[in-house]
């Protein structure tokens, strides 16, 4: 490998060269006494690599800054109006440009409710699965479950929605309810929370468990009382990151939760709006001023919500880590 930059010195047998031992120790190599041409080429390569690697990072910042700038500059104005948080969008058929029509309460409430319902279903399953994989799992069954968690994390959200549709509508002939979207989102949240909980459980030192067993504490109590509390912050972090992910999901809602302009606070009745579906609905007439404001306002609200939850999760993880 290094041989490409500077071929092995004359005294070194070729058989040693793939152990990278020859060239660099020879005086003509890295220590740079005699053979200036080669070492300059190597130094140049090194500098080019450094520049490219730094450059890659700064190029990656461009989209992030651009997105945040776009969303904040276009969306902050409607969001800062109090009606945005207090009114829903009902009566939108009336003449536009009225502040009363610029509310997004229905969508904000819908996003929060569906997200919470998802978390309530997903977190217990995910935490128990993680406990199973770490504390009980060494059987072939555990290996299959672990594999399935990976597969589940790869299931596209639209496929999760189709699955819920195939069960809910095609098979049981039920009408679609907001909770159906939560079920689809659950499938996206479980792997996130399972993996992060697993990571945290693995960090708990085995001595703690052994000390507990030595005192005669049964295994289940050891887990609930000693292992889980010592990694609770990790579980919360995972839950918040998972919540942030599902709140920003759009695809399942397109299929399972038809958009409505009215506030609905019942997960088991009617249809419920959400910020992503509000964006999607209004994006159709984005050339109209009020629709444009709604689109970017909803995008701004969504991004603030998701980034806020995300940062909260990371902060909790960060600070509890320092303490430990």
């Amino acid at each position, binding site marked *: 490998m290094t041989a490409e930059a500077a071929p092995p010195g004359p005294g070194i047998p070729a058989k040693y060269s793939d152990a990278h031992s020859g060239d660099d120790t020879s005086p003509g190599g890295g220590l740079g006494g005699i053979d200036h041409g080669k070492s300059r080429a190597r130094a140049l390569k090194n500098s080019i*690599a450094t520049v490219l690697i730094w450059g890659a990072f700064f190029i990656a910042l461009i989209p992030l800054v*651009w997105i945040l700038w776009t969303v904040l500059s276009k969306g902050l104005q409607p969001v800062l109006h109090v009606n945005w948080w207090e009114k829903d969008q009902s009566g939108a058929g009336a003449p536009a440009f009225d502040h009363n029509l610029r509310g997004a309460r229905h969508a904000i409430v819908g996003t929060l409710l569906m997200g919470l319902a998802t978390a309530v279903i997903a977190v217990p399953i995910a935490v128990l699965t993680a406990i199973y994989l770490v504390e009980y799992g060494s059987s072939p069954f*555990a290996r299959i479950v672990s594999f399935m968690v990976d597969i589940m994390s790869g299931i596209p959200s*639209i496929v999760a929605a*189709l699955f819920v549709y195939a069960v809910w509508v095609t098979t049981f002939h039920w009408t679609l309810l907001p909770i159906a979207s939560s079920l689809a989102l659950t499938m996206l949240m479980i792997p996130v929370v399972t993996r992060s909980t697993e990571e945290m459980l693995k960090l708990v030192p085995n001595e703690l468990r052994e000390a507990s067993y030595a005192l005669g*504490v049964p*295994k289940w109590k050891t887990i609930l009382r000693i292992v889980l509390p010592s990694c609770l912050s990790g579980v919360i972090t995972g839950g918040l990151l998972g919540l942030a992910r599902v709140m920003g999901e759009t695809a399942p809602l397109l299929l399972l939760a038809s958009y409505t302009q009215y506030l609905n606070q019942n997960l088991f009745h009617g249809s419920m709006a959400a910020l992503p579906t509000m964006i999607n609905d209004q994006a159709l007439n984005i050339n109209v001023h009020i629709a444009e404001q709604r689109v970017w306002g909803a995008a701004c609200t969504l991004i603030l919500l998701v980034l806020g939850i995300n940062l909260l999760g990371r902060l909790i993880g960060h600070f509890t880590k320092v303490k430990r």
Partner: protein
Amino acid sequence: MSSVTGASFTDETPGPEGEPPLRGDRASTGRLGDRLFGGMTRLAGGVVLAIVVLVGVFLVVRAIPALRANHADFFTSTEWSTSPLKFGIVQLLWTTVATSVIALVIAVPFSIAIALFLGFYAPRWLAQPAAAIIDLLAAVPSIVYGLWGAYIVAPQFAHVQSWIQDAFGWIPLFGRVPGISGGTTIFFVGVVLAIMILPIITALSREVFAQTPMTQREGAIALGATKWEMLRTTVLPFGRPGVISASMLGLGRALGETIAVMLILSTLPQGANWSWSLFNGGSTFASNIAANAPESISDTRQMGAYIAAGLVLFILTFVVNAIARIIIERRKAFSE
């Protein structure tokens, strides 16, 4: 509870999860409790397993009636129509794979470079915040990527695109497609998808790079390697399986991305001519389902066609993720 360790630990970080079982504390009932709790965790694992299996089963079962009634060949037709049922996956498959591969080709070199930056180049004070910033890219909801791509970047990208077409238009992949203007093409969707999968590939690559044995890295430096040579001879070879599997996971994400693709990509009119050009419009599996399925949501027969498309997408992502997983497992087996 007689356990000193337990008491002290819960005092430090009291957890609601830990409280309830303590009340019925009698060490001798441990065996029943163990069986119950162990059973519960196993049940949760079983639920996960069951969901994945059921996804496969339900998609197959619900796709069959539509596939039976299909008037076109599912695997070779480029048409997509649900009334009458006449649908094939060729166009969807091409668009899906083309966008994802473009995304991967762009994202992987960037991700490797950024992972190296975070692990080996960034000064200590910058490494942590920089990693958090890259992770923020993953936290941006995909619909925001879609909005940003479709309404802000695409008009700008149209210039770049026409420049590429002027220079390389003689290659069929970059040819002009009549009726498709603006930047909302397969190629541009690939670029946006690249940004979306960049954080996941970066995070995983960074993790495996950090696991490179210190002895190898120090050895390379001690032998006089420059920093880049050290990275190239120790870190990159060591991390290669990890990078490959991270790329596969990123590919899986790109294949299944829905709303960003749907908002950005121009759709083709019914019966449009086939074109290999990357500057064509089209639909991916996911964007096609999301854009058109809501119209036939009440007709389970028509939905069958979309479920069939979803099944193909599921199989694609399943295979890609399984490969990623197998690569990771093999590497674990070697390194231990």
